[in-house]
């Protein structure tokens, strides 16, 4: 029984009280403090998992599943929790009102939504019950959608509405799948379901339930071809909001997709479904990568890059469902590591884009020549974050892509290898577009008089270095991420 898991869920919520009852200054400070404590708790969960080499678990209300709800942190959950809590806390500091920040004050609503996101994400990573996960997805949706239209521009309202429609459609499909699972097994607990599935091969209606849940999660994660809502929503939000939306919010449904197909689904079923997910992934990487190249605005370019990078997770599924235990574990590690390193890169890039737009007053790529002279740290953060997307060493993105590539080649899935490499090439194209422009001489010799906000660029740079730092531990993720697999409750007969 680990108290850390409950605290990671509940502590972020406590920050809502001062935000609703006290003034905006006090509320903002309290939110920052609570998010920092939350990040500490999530890191502590990771340390506890690493030290014990076992998953942490907690039965809420002291009731074991199937009647009660169980929380469980294995290596994968702990890595996702640590990543998202760090990104959220740093984003809150980035959005903080401080002297010389140069940006309009973020309203108290922003910090409320950030706190709710922190709790929702931790719940999505910890809960072991399909219905509690539905609640987590609802919490996530209702915290994420208002972030899109915080500045109240009419175009953003439309983008937020499209996002809401996709997300709610996804919720309905997911919930329908949950109902079907309960109707067949009478339990929604992962460990109990796994045990029941191991006893008897499930029928087609379990496959239909998984397919419905997956379609819902794909709509929420914007996996190609359900990505259409993402670019306008992520590109038009305030920069701090874009950073969390692109870096962490879409990771929760992707995480659950991995849980469903890599941990819960029986291997033959996973093998049958994997090509579909892989084709969606390949479509994302190639189509959204090419569309990203054609963008004229920086934030839209980054948003399309998010829609493209999600695709690597799709490519992981056929490799992870492979027959060879070692190569499939390598692919699984590569895919999950990609989720973590992409979060750091993408948060850094959106924050950098926000700072650059503050300096220039716009984010049209053609007008950003010479940006490196007025926003050197931001350009550096964008470039270093971009390295990981390209898959250049040393970076988490490099390790992840090498793992996927090696597994693909060893398992004879040549086309997946080709897509991984082509995706890197496309990422190179869109990342270098800004870097080349930024290093050029400004066209008519004039640059904006404003300069980037140094300490906020420092936060973006720190996140970019986070993605790089993951590359210095090339083999550590293999051991840490697999702690606590397969899912089972300790001290409880299945």
């Amino acid at each position: 029984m680990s108290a850390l898991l409950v605290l990671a869920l509940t502590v972020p919520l406590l920050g809502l009280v001062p935000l609703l009852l006290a003034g905006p200054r006090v509320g903002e400070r309290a939110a920052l403090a609570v998010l920092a404590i939350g990040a500490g708790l999530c890191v502590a969960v990771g340390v506890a998992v690493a030290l014990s080499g076992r998953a942490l678990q907690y039965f809420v209300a002291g009731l074991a599943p199937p009647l009660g709800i169980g929380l469980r942190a294995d290596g994968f959950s702990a890595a996702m929790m640590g990543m998202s809590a760090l990104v959220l806390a740093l984003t809150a500091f980035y959005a903080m009102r401080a002297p010389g920040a140069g940006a309009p004050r973020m309203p108290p609503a922003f910090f409320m939504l950030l706190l709710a996101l922190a709790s929702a994400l931790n719940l999505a990573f910890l809960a072991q019950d399909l219905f509690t996960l539905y609640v987590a997805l609802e919490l996530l949706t209702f915290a994420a959608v208002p972030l899109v239209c915080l500045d109240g521009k009419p175009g953003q309202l439309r983008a937020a509405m499209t996002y809401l429609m996709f997300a709610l459609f996804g919720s309905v499909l997911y919930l329908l799948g949950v109902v079907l699972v309960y109707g067949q097994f009478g339990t929604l607990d992962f460990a109990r379901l796994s045990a029941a599935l191991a006893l008897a091969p499930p029928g087609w209606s379990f496959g239909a339930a998984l397919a419905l849940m997956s379609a819902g999660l794909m709509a929420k994660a914007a996996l190609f071809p359900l990505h259409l809502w993402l670019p306008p929503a992520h590109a038009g939000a305030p920069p701090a909001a874009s950073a969390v939306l692109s870096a962490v919010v879409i990771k929760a449904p992707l995480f659950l997709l991995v849980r469903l197909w890599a941990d819960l689904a029986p291997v033959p079923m996973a093998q049958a479904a994997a090509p579909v997910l892989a084709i969606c992934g390949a479509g994302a990487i190639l189509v959204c990568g090419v569309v990203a190249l054609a963008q004229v605005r920086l934030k839209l370019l980054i948003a399309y890059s998010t829609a493209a990078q999600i695709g690597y997770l799709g490519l992981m599924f056929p490799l992870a469902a492979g027959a060879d235990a070692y190569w499939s574990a390598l692919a699984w590690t590569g895919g999950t590591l990609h989720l973590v390193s992409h979060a750091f890169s993408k948060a850094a890039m959106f924050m950098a884009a926000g700072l650059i737009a503050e300096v220039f007053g716009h984010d049209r790529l053609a007008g950003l020549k010479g940006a490196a002279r007025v926003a050197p740290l931001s350009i550096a953060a964008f470039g270093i974050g971009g390295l990981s997307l390209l898959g250049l060493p040393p970076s988490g993105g490099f390790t992840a892509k090498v793992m996927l590539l090696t597994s693909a080649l060893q398992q004879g899935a040549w086309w997946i290898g080709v897509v991984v490499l082509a995706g890197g090439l496309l990422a190179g194209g869109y990342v270098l577009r800004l870097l080349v422009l930024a290093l050029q001489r400004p066209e008519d010799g004039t640059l904006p008089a404003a300069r980037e906000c140094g300490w906020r660029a420092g936060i973006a740079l720190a996140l970019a270095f986070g993605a790089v730092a993951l590359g210095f531990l090339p083999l550590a993720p293999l051991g840490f991420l697999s702690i606590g697999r397969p899912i089972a409750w300790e001290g409880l007969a299945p």
Partner: protein
Amino acid sequence: MSLVFDALAGLLVAGAALAAVTAAAPRAAVIAFMGYGVLLGLAWARLAAPDVALTEIAIGSGISGIVLLRAAAGLPAVPPAANRALAAAISVAVALGLAALVLALPEPAPSRAADAAAALPATGLGNPVTGVLLAFRALDTLLEKIVLLLALVGVWALARDPLWRGRPEPLFAGAAPAPSAFLARVLVPIGVLVGAYLLWAGADAPGGAFQSGATLAAMGLLALMAGLAPLPRADDRRLRLVLLAGPFGLLAAGFLGWATAGAFLAFPPGFEKPVIKIVEIAITASIALTLILVVLGPPAGEERP
């Protein structure tokens, strides 16, 4: 006799649904949809699921109906015929697919009802639905209350004033017509009584915080529409406290249980029922107020003197 009743109820539900989708004007469609919700509630009651029935009528028909009526008022015209044909085709396909999936489920359905019934005496409650919502799966309930609060934050985030001062715009321009003001004067006290009873009875009989909160919210909206009470100020400290009371009351009870019973969201041994009851009252107040505020919309900013 029961077969006749069932057939009649089924036909009425199908007829109301058909009326909702074939209605020419959005307003007529919404009114048919509200009728459909009430009839569906009767069907649930017939299936011996009174808690679902009450929720369907109060939330699925009542509160959703008010929200949809407001939205319908802003809709210009009927969608083009091509869209309607496509929508009909998709709906039929979805209905057939759902029917196939539901009919393929094992019979009898696996259920946790026996577990819930066995664990119920420890909570001191008599209604197993309340036991599931507030004891066995209280974590879901706690977070659903936060979702409701966030829905309000999302609505208020659309306010022009980021600090959320002032009152929302009136629901309808001008003074309420005399008949609806009279209806509100007669109906609101009865409705409040019904809401309070649903809450009180919920521990041992069908009912509970959700149904009660929705009923009270409907009564509050009726009173506001008739002009019996002034629109609430969004920056009123007491109003904010009531909003927080439900979710954070349950959270506080969860921590109290952690201190006394050794597990988060367990309840203090020997005091389960009183603690659950107090928390339920707080949740009901929060649900009612949050629903009212969500329907009223974002605050319009500080009034000019």
